[in-house]
């Protein structure tokens, strides 16, 4: 594999793709559906929110390795965070996957495995789909969001 491919398909991403975490529904809570028309990725993000804190997060759906791993890691990481904290994290995550090669890397802990996405502009939407859907779910609009 070329190094750019290695960077994109890191072991952590492949692992979360193979065995996605929090791959279930949450009965009593909010959810939103995310859709990427380019490749047909479809995710539903489920949240249980108390006050302004995310108590539980999960997802279902089908998608490429990048979108599945992103949803898997995201649902792990936002658990216990406030909605505002999750939103701030999304903004940093988005910068991580869209920054130019010269820009300094922001250390986002586990999420840093997605740094390689920036070399694949066509895949940015895959990585950000779960986060867009999370945002819609916290807004409790219960609607379909699209990456377009």
């Amino acid at each position: 594999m070329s190094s750019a491919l290695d960077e994109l398909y890191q072991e952590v991403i492949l692992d979360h793709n193979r065995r996605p975490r929090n791959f279930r529904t949450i009965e009593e809570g909010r959810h939103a559906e995310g859709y990427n028309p380019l490749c047909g990725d479809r995710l539903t993000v489920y949240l249980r929110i108390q006050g302004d804190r995310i108590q539980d997060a999960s997802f279902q759906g089908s998608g490429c390795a990048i979108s599945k791993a992103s949803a898997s890691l995201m649902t792990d990481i936002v658990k216990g965070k406030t909605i505002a904290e999750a939103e701030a994290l999304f903004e940093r995550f988005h910068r991580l996957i869209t920054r130019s090669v010269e820009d300094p890397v922001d250390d986002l802990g586990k999420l840093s495995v997605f740094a390689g996405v920036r070399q694949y502009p066509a895949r940015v939407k895959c990585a950000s789909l779960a986060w867009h859907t999370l945002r819609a779910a916290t807004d409790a609009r219960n609607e379909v969001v699209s990456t377009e």
Partner: protein
Amino acid sequence: MTSIPLTRTELDVRSVREDFPILRALAHGKPLIYLDNAATTQKPQVVLDRLVRYYTHENANVHRGVHLLSERATDAYEEARKTAARFLHAAETQEIIFVRGTTEAINLVAQTYGRVHVGAGDEVVITVMEHHSNIVPWQMLCDERGARLRIVPMTDEGALRIDSYEALLGDRTRIVAVTHVSNALGTVNPIRRIVEIAHARGIPVLVDGAQAVAHTAVDVQALDCDFYTFSGHKVFGPTGIGVLYGKAALLDAVPPYQGGGDMIRSVSFERTLYNVLPYKFEAGTPNIAGGVGLGAAIEYVEALGFDRIGAHERDLLAYGTRALEGIPGLRLTGTAGDKGGILSFVLDGVHPHDVGTILDREGVAIRTGHHCCQPLMARLGVPATSRASLALYNTRAEIDVLAGALAKVREVFV
């Protein structure tokens, strides 16, 4: 220049490849292997040269000026129309309407013929394997008119169910719209038979030829279809130009599509008289260079000959089918008996998008996704497929690279 093949029966692919400058390119440092021909085809030097010659020596508006250049431009453009008429074996040149592409051609028919003939309670029949461009224009028409869209089903292999098709046709059916070759499955539909069945009930048929014309000779009179559409860019011509063929009697009897210059005979504020065919349907300054370039592209494939092109592509398809079937976990979608050069597949445990990215890094360009056929994907029960689509310049060696790259995909994911 157009290559002259070595024998009468075999395509000299090496020399054909030299006609296409882009095929010398590298992609991510590897030789480009272009297997996305169903999306668009590459252009031979003769087409590029023709565009340059047009803009260098002939450019003017058409049908308007008395000056030399306008005459040259008009001649070149109308010559291209004759070439397209010969290409499709149309009875008359005026049956060739230049449009932007297949999409515009189908919208034109839906908005002119369709609006005249489809009313409340009527039915339009399409098939489950149509491209969105042969679904949505009819859906829009049906919504507007309170008409109903009926869908011809297919077998799991991807062949149309002709018995169900026949049963679907009724006294409310106003038009049948069907693809000649499926862009997502490769299925070649039995158009002659489909037309015969519809005509027996007095129903006209539109054929979407977008995926056919680069691969097989088309004779609209032998098919006896009422409308036939294709896009120039899928037959080695420029983007932004395509053809709508329609039987003159049908085209004559319906109102124009868009209003404007060129499509009129005379205009006053009280009343406008429309121009004759084909100009009635070509409002405004057309894509002149595109038409001229398309003419050159058609001449290019005609010189190679569809017997040779067809034989070469059949060989590649058989070779590619064997190669892909040998890959563990790979399932071909679309295995109809009569098939064109499309290898659509799903790989167990790997999303097509990931397949596409890894192949791209190997220099192999394929399409992944729903191929503008979401209802078909729903029928197949998959969100997306990967698709390698062949053209006359592809080789067995390129298929080998594709198969090797797919093995790499499995290494990463399985």
